[in-house]
């Protein structure tokens, strides 16, 4: 049996030269000590391969039509055998791809592997990063639910801030005067043809560069990169201590890659397909468009930016981020590679992690948005038998105060907590605030009737610290 296979292979190989073509690539020498830190690039590729397979299978059923995309996804999720699992795999596969890509990028940066002669490896990687994020965002739009159609509006509004061509860019994203079926088909074509095609081409380039420039050896403090001698030194190192990629290094990629697949499969099975928002019906006005997790931190940037500079941030922020990533190998392409000798690189990683972490946390709290799901204040919070106070508490809910202000944990967090407002402000101060509003608060002078203002005031004045035991209650 084994002999038969061998014979068939020899027959094919003699006529195609496949072995001759792939052999040297597979067995190219890699540093013997390039171990588990080096698996994240191939893991990204593994996740992308899964995306291609699951994406094609989803396209077997998905209907990219403005009127039917949502229903076809509902069918995939709830009716078609294994459909929910496929959607889940595609979602967690995308998440894994982005996660692995980010870890890969940080590792390459931390190891100084982007330095000579691997500048182009880095630059092609930065482009792959940008294409992959765009692929993820367009994928989110394929759900064609409320979240998707309104996310497109938000994207168009951001594009609209670009000087001069902004309005046209915005119109291009919307796809004309208004969103329509053509908006979906355009993003569908981008998501399934254009972006994967570009990414495949760039992966080809990226891998070719890996073969040409070799896998960088783990950094050693004090061992500097000198473009004049680097290639010769690397060549010598490989001749002395290098090991063939296949199978000496490839097995780790295989172990980690299979582990990643198992993790994706587990997440898909355990968490299921990502939730669908309401259908894209424009008369349903409860949409709250939000990006998927990997862009949530940027969502926080948009919310926290002072309005005066937000146009600048929206336009030049992403541009600056891209430029910064692009400039990395031009700022330093030689010298030390080990983090111990690169304090600025350590600072950049730590600062970046803190920045994104803090923004992510802020996005999960979302304390810049009113709460829409609050219920009227419960009796044990109101704690009064006074009709005016009770009416005031009702108004606190009815007039929308509770959307932004909390009392004893009930209510939004956009405005100040009013649990003890009666101890902090006197009657005239409270009235002034309510009537005039403020930076983030509407003026309620035209909304509240005068007796309502009185009752609301009466209620708020009861919001006091408990009297201290020795204060004699005066």
């Amino acid at each position, binding site marked *: 049996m084994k002999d038969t296979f061998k014979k068939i292979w020899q027959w094919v190989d003699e006529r195609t030269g496949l072995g001759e073509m792939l052999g040297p690539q597979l067995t190219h020498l890699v540093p013997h000590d390039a171990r588990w830190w080096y698996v994240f690039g191939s893991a990204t590729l593994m996740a992308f391969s899964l995306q291609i397979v699951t994406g094609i299978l989803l396209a077997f059923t998905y209907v990219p039509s403005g009127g039917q995309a949502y229903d076809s996804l509902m069918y995939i999720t709830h009716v078609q055998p294994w459909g929910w699992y496929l959607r889940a795999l595609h979602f967690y596969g995308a998440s894994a791809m982005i996660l692995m890509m980010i870890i890969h990028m940080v590792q390459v940066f931390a190891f100084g592997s982007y330095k000579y002669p691997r500048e182009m490896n880095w630059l092609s990687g930065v482009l792959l990063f940008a294409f992959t994020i765009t692929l993820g965002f367009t994928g989110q739009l394929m759900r064609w639910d409320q979240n998707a159609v309104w996310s497109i509006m938000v994207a168009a509004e951001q594009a609209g801030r670009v000087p001069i061509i902004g309005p046209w860019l915005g119109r*291009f994203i919307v796809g004309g005067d208004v969103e329509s079926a053509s*908006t979906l088909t355009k993003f569908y074509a981008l998501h399934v043809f254009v972006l994967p095609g570009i990414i495949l081409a760039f992966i080809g380039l990226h891998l070719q560069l890996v073969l040409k420039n070799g896998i960088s050896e783990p950094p050693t403090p004090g061992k500097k990169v000198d473009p004049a001698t680097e290639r010769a030194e690397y060549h010598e190192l490989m001749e002395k201590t290098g090991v063939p990629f296949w199978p000496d290094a490839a097995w780790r990629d295989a172990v980690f890659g299979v582990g990643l697949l198992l993790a994706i499969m587990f997440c898909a099975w355990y968490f299921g397909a990502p939730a669908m928002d309401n259908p894209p019906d424009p008369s349903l*006005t409860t*949409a*709250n468009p939000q990006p998927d997790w990997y862009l949530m931190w940027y969502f926080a940037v948009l919310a926290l930016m002072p*309005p005066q500079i937000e146009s600048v941030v929206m336009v030049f922020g992403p541009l600056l981020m891209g430029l910064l990533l692009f400039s990395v190998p031009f700022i330093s392409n030689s010298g030390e590679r080990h983090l111990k000798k690169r304090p600025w690189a350590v600072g950049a990683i730590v600062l970046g992690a803190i920045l994104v972490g803090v923004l992510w946390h802020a996005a999960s709290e979302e304390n810049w948005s009113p709460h829409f799901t609050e219920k009227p204040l419960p009796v044990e919070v109101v704690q009064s038998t006074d009709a005016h106070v009770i009416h005031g508490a009702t108004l606190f809910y009815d007039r*929308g105060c509770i959307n932004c202000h909390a009392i004893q944990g009930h209510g939004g967090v956009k405005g100040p907590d009013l649990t003890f407002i009666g101890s902090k402000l006197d009657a005239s101060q409270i009235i002034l605030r309510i009537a005039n509003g403020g930076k983030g608060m509407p003026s309620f002078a035209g909304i509240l009737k005068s007796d309502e203002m009185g009752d609301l005031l009466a209620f708020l004045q009861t919001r006091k610290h408990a009297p201290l035991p020795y204060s004699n209650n005066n």
Partner: protein
Amino acid sequence: MTAKTNPPESRKPASPELLSRRAFLERVTFILGGIGTLAMSVPLVGYVLAPVFKNDVPKWRPVGKVGDFKVGETVAISFDNAAPLPWDGQTGKTGAWLRRNSETEFIAFALTCTHLGCPVRWMASAELFMCPCHGGVYYKDGSVAAGPPPKPLPRFETRINNGVVEVKTQPVAIQRS
């Protein structure tokens, strides 16, 4: 094994005639390729960009009888876009908030917050529009009450035609910086 090397003819030292012939052939290839690419790309780019420059003729769309709306109330409405396609489905409609200000005056507000385009919600008892994204708030007349929005809510033109309230379609408002 031999396929990788060029045939011996091309290895000969090139004569000046051959060199100028090669330069000519290179130029011809590039110019022809350039012409072909240009000729091909004009309609292709035009096809891709067409939606940017296509302006739908605005249409008046009925949204209900005058009597269906109470003075002082604001309700959600939706109406067909100016040029819906058969496969648009739900996407072929636009939503809006319609306020009956008086016996004869109707105001239709776009859903799109002027900050970043999220859909604003009408909080009837508070008489405010609130945006879920970044906390923009508008008064009942659409003017900015609080938060980041730079401008009042965009409006659609309205009219009463034979006892029916009609709203005029318009492109989505994309704010400039």
